């Protein structure tokens, strides 16, 4: 199968390969896929709490060339967007940009899923933190009430 120039470019010069510290509060991590299916994608975002803007993104992918290209492109696209804007990215946009053939559409779906999973993870971290903080202040209040 011949690859499109854009797939080859992302494969040969992947953007934003690497990892962010998944323990950081402002980092969201999405891992999707499964080794036995031949594809696992990890996509991470770092979000500015004030603006909700994605200031950094990294990926690591185990999968075919199209999966690597899709995740590389996804990190490029989410950078600079707010998390709500990033949620608008559709796998069909990736298919179009990379000219993926039909058998490779699921690789782009995986990239979309990875973006969502990363945002989800970030959001749940914020909620946990909120409830933690709430719990803390409640504890505090209780203690003070004693």
């Amino acid at each position, binding site marked *: 199968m011949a690859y499109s120039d854009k797939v080859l470019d992302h494969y040969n010069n992947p953007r934003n390969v690497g990892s962010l510290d998944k323990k950081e509060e402002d980092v969201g991590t999405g891992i*999707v896929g499964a080794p*036995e*299916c031949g594809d696992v994608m990890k996509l991470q975002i770092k979000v500015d709490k004030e603006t909700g803007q994605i200031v950094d993104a990294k990926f*690591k992918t*185990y999968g075919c060339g199209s999966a690597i290209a899709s995740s590389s492109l996804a990190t490029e696209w989410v950078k600079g967007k707010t998390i709500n804007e990033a949620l608008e990215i559709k796998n069909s946009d990736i298919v179009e940009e990379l000219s993926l053939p039909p058998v490779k559409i699921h690789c782009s779906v995986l990239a979309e899923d990875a973006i969502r999973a990363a945002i989800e993870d970030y959001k749940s971290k914020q909620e946990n933190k909120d409830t933690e903080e709430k719990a803390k202040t409640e504890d505090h209040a209780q203690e003070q009430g004693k």
Partner: protein
Amino acid sequence: MKPNKCKRPIYMDYNATTPCDPRVVQAMLPYFHEKFGNPASRSHAYGWVAEEAVSKARRQVADLIGASPKEIVFTSGATESDNLAIKGVAQMYAEKGKHVISCVTEHKAVLDSCKRLETWGYEVSFLPVDAKGRIDLEELKSTIRKDTILVSLMAANNETGTYHPIEAIGEITRERGVLFHCDATQAIGKREIDVDKAKIDLLSLSGHKIYGPKGIGALYVRRRNPRVRLVAQIDGGGHERGMRSGTLPVTQIVGLGEACALLQENMKEEVQRVQSLRDRLEKSILEQLDYVYINGDPDNRLPSMTNLSFAYVEGESLIMGMKDLAVSSGSACTSASLEPSYVLKAAGVEDELAHSSIRFSLGRFTKEEEIDVAVGQVVSAVKRLREMSPLYELVQEGVDLKSVKWEAH
């Protein structure tokens, strides 16, 4: 890494097909235009010349496997030979029984012929294999029944190169009065095969795997002790003693004969040379990379190939990274399906490692320098992709991948 000076990628996919040897091409050329006759034309010199060429080729093929020329039926390739052997025997011996034995790792040409028999009311037992791709001979013995008419097992597997113990199999089938069909497509020229020694009753081979042309193959059909009979699958003018009708493609047949003669002459040295190249390739890769696993039976396999799984990198992306190498991931015929190789799965190779498998198959025109270029490309591509692999990262962190809950999409 040394640069690859030639523009075409280095060919390491000899199990898929081989280039025609220039000597084979030379031998074929006169039969396109000058000596174009139909060997079935008994009434003039054009036919006689063609008939003579076919006879010579028939002997060359027969000699290579220790058969007599009358036992060779020309076909369009090993796929047809497998079909003719399995369906032809099944139909001929239906009164004796309707049970056939084969194995889960056979080529699709055998498996699908057997599956066709099932739709015709036959029963087929597919023997399982162990982690090295080997069958259990005791299991073969206990699977043979009163109504078993045929055992079809290959000499060497096309994906892993694993050998079946054909001489031990032939011993068992002969003793039990069951016919033995052997798909020797990959083994010819690399493994010593003598139809009498191995007590083989039917044998498939193909031109394009042995430096001959595509579209030609042969089926060996034993004529005595026992005399094997077949129901033809292609009817017509009664060529090939009624077993395979159709005007003989003289050019292809001459090519196949010449290819066999060349093997006969040089097999020993050729096997030695290619095995030392394979060993060098395999050893260098294993020395320079960790988490690499050999698929198949390292002690009993084709000398010309190695099938390796590179854990934590996916095969297709790896092939993409080895720009100057022409190799395959799993079987060439199944790679379009996106399914991991059924041969590796049958041997209990985990799906993940099956996805990571690459078959390197070398041959007559592989050069020593090419091995070094290949090793360099493999090592650097695997290293680069592992840097990009979330699985490799997890393993480096000490995570057991099996303990992770994956969300398959």
